[in-house]
């Protein structure tokens, strides 16, 4: 709806088919309408888009490379595996693509303060980074359990000048951090912008975050063309809220030659409370402002979830993923904690790249898939972030 090249979802009410929408208290509606209008105007403003492009190139270090993973390919024994290297973007993850975009929007709206939720801390770091760059006051909400297991990122956020608020309520993870960020926004909406970090939340966030992250897929398309002269046969990405997956899938979404595979956190088992895989095991429901697949009980109360990966430890998922699932446009699967931890070690040893625990899920699924494919076929993994932040937690888990 921003320009002719975008498909028709979401509609004006923020719906991706039946999913999405804007289930928020009235207090936030005016800010969301302002954001939608400002975003539309910004994307039609050549000065804004060229500033964004320049920041992505000269500040965030884009384009990130597409790397052929020779030894991983040999190990899998099937299709050739390439890595889209979002771990090499500034701050070490894809999250910077969105925070630079929303940071520019914040400045355009004249707001002086930003807030954000974070799970693994990557979005918190990327938000604190953008805030430092644009000279904005910054507060981050992070669950106490995630503060423990992603301590390095807490130090990074503070170093960048942000205040980190530790959330002790509920499961003390990403869901609860999001609740607190929304509560902050309810009180401060007149001068604060909420930089939501994934393709979740009320309209227009799922659309804006998808669009800012789509640079991953657009670059990947061009790089695939240069590297092997066509689109890949499969693209694999991990899905928590789903921003890195939306970013790499979206520019390929209508490509029938490409199989898109989203990988959720399978945790310890498929029993309730032991995984974080709403697309696989959940049902439609409302969480954090939009209708999507959610892990809830029969009365709509949010269910407990588990993943070894803080960034995937979330009971909901972006509404566009729900739409893609029901439309058969993306195949969704899940990978256990153990498989992800194995893949974390595997990529480190075989390629000299320590992945974050989140994309380690994608690596595990991709290796399995590649093994069943032919040597002239190609699998691209979205390596959404690097694993420095996880080294301490993995050594605790794997001792």
């Amino acid at each position, binding site marked *: 709806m921003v320009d002719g090249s975008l498909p028709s979802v979401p509609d004006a009410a923020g719906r991706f088919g039946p999913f999405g929408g804007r289930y928020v*208290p009235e207090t936030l509606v005016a800010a969301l309408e302002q954001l939608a209008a400002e975003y539309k105007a910004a994307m039609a403003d050549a000065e804004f888009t060229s500033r964004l492009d320049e920041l992505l190139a000269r500040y965030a270090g884009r384009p990130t490379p597409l790397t052929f993973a020779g030894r991983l390919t040999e190990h899998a024994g099937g299709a050739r595996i390439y890595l889209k290297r979002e771990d090499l973007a500034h701050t070490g993850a894809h999250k910077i693509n969105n925070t630079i975009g929303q940071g520019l929007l914040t400045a355009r709206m004249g707001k002086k303060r930003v807030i954000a939720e974070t799970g693994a801390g990557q979005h918190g770091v990327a938000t604190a980074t953008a805030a430092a760059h644009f000279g904005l006051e910054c507060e981050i909400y992070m669950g106490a359990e995630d503060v423990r297991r992603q301590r390095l990122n807490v130090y990074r956020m503070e170093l960048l000048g942000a205040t980190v608020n530790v959330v002790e309520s509920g499961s003390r993870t990403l869901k609860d951090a999001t609740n607190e960020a929304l*509560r902050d926004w309810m009180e401060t909406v007149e001068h604060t912008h909420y930089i939501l970090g994934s393709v979740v939340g009320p309209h227009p966030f799922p659309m804006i975050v998808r669009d800012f992250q789509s640079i991953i897929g657009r670059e990947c398309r061009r790089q695939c063309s240069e590297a092997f002269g066509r689109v890949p046969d499969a693209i694999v990405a991990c899905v928590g809220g789903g921003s890195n997956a939306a970013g790499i899938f979206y520019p390929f979404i209508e490509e029938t030659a490409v199989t898109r595979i989203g990988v959720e956190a399978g945790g310890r088992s498929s029993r309730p409370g032991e995984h974080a895989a709403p697309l696989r095991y959940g049902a439609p429901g409302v969480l954090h402002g939009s209708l999507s697949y959610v892990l809830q009980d029969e*009365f709509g109360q949010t269910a407990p979830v588990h993943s070894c990966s803080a960034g995937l430890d979330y009971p909901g998922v972006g509404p566009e993923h729900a739409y893609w699932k029901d439309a058969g446009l993306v195949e969704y699967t899940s990978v256990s904690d153990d498989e992800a931890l194995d893949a974390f070690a595997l990529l480190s040893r075989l390629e000299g790249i320590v992945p974050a625990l989140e994309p380690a899920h994608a690596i595990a699924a991709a290796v399995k898939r590649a093994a069943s494919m032919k040597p002239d076929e190609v699998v691209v993994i979205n390596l959404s972030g690097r694993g420095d932040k996880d080294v301490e937690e993995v050594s605790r888990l794997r001792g």
Partner: protein
Amino acid sequence: MTHRVDEIFATLRAEGRKGLIPFVTAGYPSLQATAAVIGAFEESLGPTVVELGIPFSDPIADGPVIAASMHEALHCGVTPQAVFDTVRSLRPDTGHALVAMVSASIVERMGPDRFVALAAESGFDGLIVPDLDVSGSAGRLDEITARHGLALTMLVAPNTPAGRVASIASRCTGFVYVLARVGLTGERTSLPDVSARVQAVRSVTDRPIAVGFGISRPEQVAAATRTADAAIVGSAIVRRMGRAADPAAAAAEFAAELAAGLPSGNGSPAAPE
């Protein structure tokens, strides 16, 4: 169709009085306390509108007091079904209009048709879904609540543009809920002047208007009801229920103190005949 919410406000208007609308979290500190407080409010306030908050795991519009009460109720196993059962058991004995305050997450998961049917059948008179997608799903809820004779209340915020105020008010079949301030539920020492905003809503609707969010003192009740038909008080009541030996008595006593802030046209708190 005339429902109990309209009847309560019609009586208030006919008698030149204003109302106090207490909010309690259903099932906090127990379902027995909820049943008892409904009766106790009738003794201290006369028949009025009572909001029952159905506990939700992630109440993002609520401040710490109500959020904690909801988590406590959920911890004790309070479900929407249990709230409906409680309302059904006390319905024959109460003249209050009972309004359910419930998250869209609960309504959507149970199914709007099923949720509204169960609420109406149990004896609820009205419904507030504060995080309703007004542009998306409200259309269906308008129709469903109308079919089941439930009054639908929607909210107007301080930052709601004028055109949208008119559209929201036109879809309310119960009272219009005017938020006194931006932010979360909870007690505040000062309250912004809401009279201009209430008058603006009044100019576009004949529906009764109630003001809430941040009201916890008789003088705030007085200020809000200078223009509005009623004042809504939640957190201050819920907080008192949580720490009292007799939660219902504590809530009713406090509600009577607040009602002293209603304009002098209000007579004795005894139920009008």
